[in-house]
């Protein structure tokens, strides 16, 4: 190894940054080269001077008061702030879901507007241990009107253009949490199609956690002279459609 290469490595050697082979080669050269040994002594003196200066005791300002004062204005550590934001977003999401998918009373069936009966998929409802399972529909006599089945109403995301206020709300939410999915399931709550059972499952991510909230609402309109307690609730898939509500031509 040439003297110039050795001198370029003297500093790294003093700092212990050379490999074992490099260090051994350097030591062998130093044993034979007085000029490089003089350079090594100079490097050692310079490094001692640098360390001496950088390690001099020095006065330092106590910034405890100003920093703590600024921190108290923040009040909450960041993690608690995130929790607050997350909580507010959860509440906002639930309220938004309920508002957008609030149950509406079915229109009075007519011949041209037959009642719609939908079936619910197997679904476990959070907060309720029971499992709603689809049941086999009762046998419907041939003289009964044909039942029209529609697929379960599901939303992956709410329609952003459905209501004027929703895009702004969603945009505000997306800046803090990520809304993963809103699933809405509507099934008839009553044999006659007067009520509606709405299940809203909202899934979102807050700080890497996936959270889900399911809320179920059942709305059954009660007519003035009707005894609500006497309403019989058949199995969900059992459909009996009064003849007068059937499709045209079958009544």
């Amino acid at each position, binding site marked *: 190894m040439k003297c110039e290469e050795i001198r*370029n490595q003297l*500093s*790294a050697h003093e*700092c*212990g*940054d050379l490999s074992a082979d490099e260090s051994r080669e350097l030591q062998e050269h130093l044993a034979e080269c007085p*000029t490089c040994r*003089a*350079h090594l002594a*100079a*490097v050692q*003196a*310079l*490094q*001692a*001077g*640098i*360390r*001496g*200066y*950088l*390690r*001099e005791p*020095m*006065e*330092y*300002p*106590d*910034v*405890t008061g*100003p*920093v*703590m004062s*600024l*921190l*108290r204005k*923040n*009040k*909450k*550590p*960041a*993690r*608690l702030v*995130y929790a607050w934001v997350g909580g507010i977003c959860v509440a906002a999401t639930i309220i938004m879901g309920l508002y957008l998918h609030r149950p509406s009373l079915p229109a009075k069936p007519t011949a041209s507007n037959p009642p719609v009966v939908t079936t619910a998929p197997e679904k476990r409802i959070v907060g309720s241990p029971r499992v709603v399972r689809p049941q086999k529909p009762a046998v419907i006599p041939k003289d009964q009107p044909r039942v029209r089945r529609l697929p379960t109403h599901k939303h992956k995301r709410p329609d952003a253009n459905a209501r004027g206020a929703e895009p702004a709300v969603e945009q505000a939410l997306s800046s803090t949490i990520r809304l993963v999915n809103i699933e809405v399931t509507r099934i008839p709550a009553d044999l006659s199609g007067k009520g509606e059972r709405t299940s809203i499952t909202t899934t979102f991510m807050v700080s890497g956690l996936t959270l889900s909230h399911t809320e179920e609402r059942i709305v059954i309109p009660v007519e003035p002279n009707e005894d609500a307690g006497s309403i019989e609730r058949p199995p969900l898939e059992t459909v009996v459609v009064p003849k007068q509500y059937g499709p045209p031509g079958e009544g």
Partner: protein
Amino acid sequence: MRAQSTSGDNLVSDEQIICRVLGGHTDDFRVLLQRYQERTFRLAYRILGTYDDGQDAVQETFLRVYQALPGYRHEGKLWPWIRRIATNVCLKRLPSEPKPDELDDSIESADLVETQVLGRIELANVGKAIGGLPTRYRLAIIVRYQEELTCREIAEELGEKVTTIKVRLHRAERMLAERLKVLMNDEV
């Protein structure tokens, strides 16, 4: 003014204090401040060069540390994490300098032996010489000799290659020797 910490505070680990701060005990952050503000100021002062700038940088550093505490991973000691934040704060406060070609070794530098000043170095001159170095060389010298980091550790901290740091340190020392020589000649 020197900050004093109680002996009781020293019995509590950094991790315990961080957990308490994250749990809502904001005032416990004071213990971390008192533990690390001296080292932070020393680093900031050496990089920035003035007392006031160093003080401002320390305040900003600890505000950032506080904000970043939820993301702190308890994998090592706290000081390297604070030092990295402090270094970034200081570098942002410095005017940007053109990036030199560090592999270009054509800069005139003093022969360490020829300077003949290294045996009678005055610390004040070392301070002036370090303060006159370009930022990247000054920073390399500070973290190497004040923080006693190896070239590999410096490379990791600054996001550079180990070879680059070795060359940078070597050149920084040669530039220091040159500046010391000039300073000593001026005195004479």
